[in-house]
């Protein structure tokens, strides 16, 4: 009788979505090929907190379903990975079937695929592009250069991962990643968008804080 009632966990988080506690380097064996970052989480839903109910909650999820199935990516190739990104969009690995359409302007796009090495001279333009994109927006760091500097980690002019500049949702490893890996990354992003909509009333940082 003296036992304190254990507090139920406020949300269910799949095991592989946790970020490691220290460092930005991932153990790919445990986490699967594609790992997830914190990303730019959407603000808590106003409708849902004002009138909690079944229908409004479902509306959020419905919107997320629509969003996740029509991700427009910014046409934005930086380096070598851009070639594989183009390959993914082209005939053999038709990206269109996931609803992923490449779009030349940041004003109408949802996803920024950072495909290549981010150097310090390019840092400001990248942040500017990210700020030009309307909310909700997501970022995929494609390849090891965008994840943590990759083969250029020793260089004087390379940013050690694009997550120093903008929040990243999905990290796709590889140098360069195969088109299949990028497709997997998009699928993971879709999963994440739907998950975030289901748990939108949780404070943005709850996902990581509840774990520690």
């Amino acid at each position, binding site marked *: 009788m003296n036992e304190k009632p254990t507090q139920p966990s406020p949300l269910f988080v799949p095991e592989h979505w946790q970020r490691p506690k220290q460092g930005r380097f991932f153990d790919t064996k445990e986490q699967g090929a594609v790992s997830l970052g914190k990303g730019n989480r959407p603000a808590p839903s106003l409708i849902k907190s004002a009138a909690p109910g079944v229908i409004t909650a479902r509306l959020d999820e419905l919107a997320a379903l629509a969003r996740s199935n029509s991700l427009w990516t*910014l046409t934005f190739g930086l380096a070598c990975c851009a070639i594989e990104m183009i390959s993914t969009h082209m005939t*053999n690995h038709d990206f269109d079937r996931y609803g992923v359409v490449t779009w030349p302007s940041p004003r109408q796009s949802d996803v920024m695929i950072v495909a290549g090495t981010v150097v310090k001279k390019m840092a400001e333009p990248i942040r500017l592009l990210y700020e030009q994109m309307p909310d909700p927006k997501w970022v995929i760091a494609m390849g090891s250069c965008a994840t943590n500097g990759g083969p250029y980690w020793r260089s004087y002019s390379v940013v050690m991962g694009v997550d120093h500049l903008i929040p990243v949702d999905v990290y796709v490893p590889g140098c360069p990643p195969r088109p299949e890996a990028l497709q997997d990354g998009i699928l993971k992003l879709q999963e994440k968008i739907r998950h975030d909509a289901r748990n939108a009333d949780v404070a943005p940082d709850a996902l990581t804080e509840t774990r520690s």
Partner: protein
Amino acid sequence: MTTTDQRQVDMMLNLGPQHPATHGVFRMLLTLDGERIVDMEPHIGYLHRGSEKLCENESYGQIVTLFDRMDYIANLNNELVFVRAVERLMGLEVPERAQFIRVLLCELNRVASHLLFLGTYGLDVGAMTPVMYTFRERERIQNIFESVTGARLMHNYIRIGGIKEDVPSDFTARVRAALEFVKRGVDETDRLLSFNEVFLLRTKGVGVIDAKTAVSCGLTGPNLRASGVPYDVRKDNPYEVYPYLTFKVPVGERGDCWDRYYMRVLECHESISMIEQCLDLLPDGPTMTQTRRIARPPKGEVYVHAENPRGDIGVFLVSDGSDKPYRLKVRPPSFCNLVALRPMLLNSYVADSIAILGSIDIVLGEVDR
């Protein structure tokens, strides 16, 4: 009098670094007088990764991977020129089979690179369809690369003294099957795009550069040959097994965008014929010389250049006798081709600027290194 006042005001137009048609992170500031470009200032360095400095701290075997990432459309050609520089310094003789396989794969990579150009150049001038076809053929070539080297893009296959390993047993059959496909694809793109009336209007007589300016700017490769200078390293300073192969070097007349485009179509055909010759001549034997694992070239310096899909790539290597180069400098063909962009753009219309930029086929990874 208002008209004269208005003519004084030039308009500045910024293009890039993120622009769907700049083939990477290239930025240029155009000064316009009405529709006409009166001044142009290119800005590069948005992909400057410091490769040349990094090379000074890597052993010779590791540098091959950095060369892969320099010109990321023609990886094998890049590997070859670096490896040749080290081999010449060490005085290594590469087995014939390895040389044939190197040349064969390099020519395949040249076709793949030109296919990418044909497709994206169509996109630049507004033709959406060809890129779908050219990428279909490009995937076939990349499948061959994958079966031989294990990677689609960054191969790290050509090593100092030979190649990583022998090709798989069904290599010849695979290449022949893919070549049939690619040959058909190149013809198809040629018929679809080259003599299309809209395409001709967009490219004929646009971005003309004469031979003297082109040579002074350091323009090389198909861009230089389009201006009528028959300079090709494979012919003029033959390396590896190119002396054994018979091929023609296409040369243009006017040096406009269409000529530069059509040089690539013709080079695709030549490369395909070279690959077939290599397959016929491919000898048996070892693919690697007996050499130490860690290359230590003797003290000295060497300059080696070779023909890349984009032009004449050179490597200047200074060795101090250790396992790391003392200084390594690359002559990137795209860098020099970009110098020629300014004379091409001046006095042309702003609507043609993308067609001109696309026609010199730059790779920013190589421009900035």
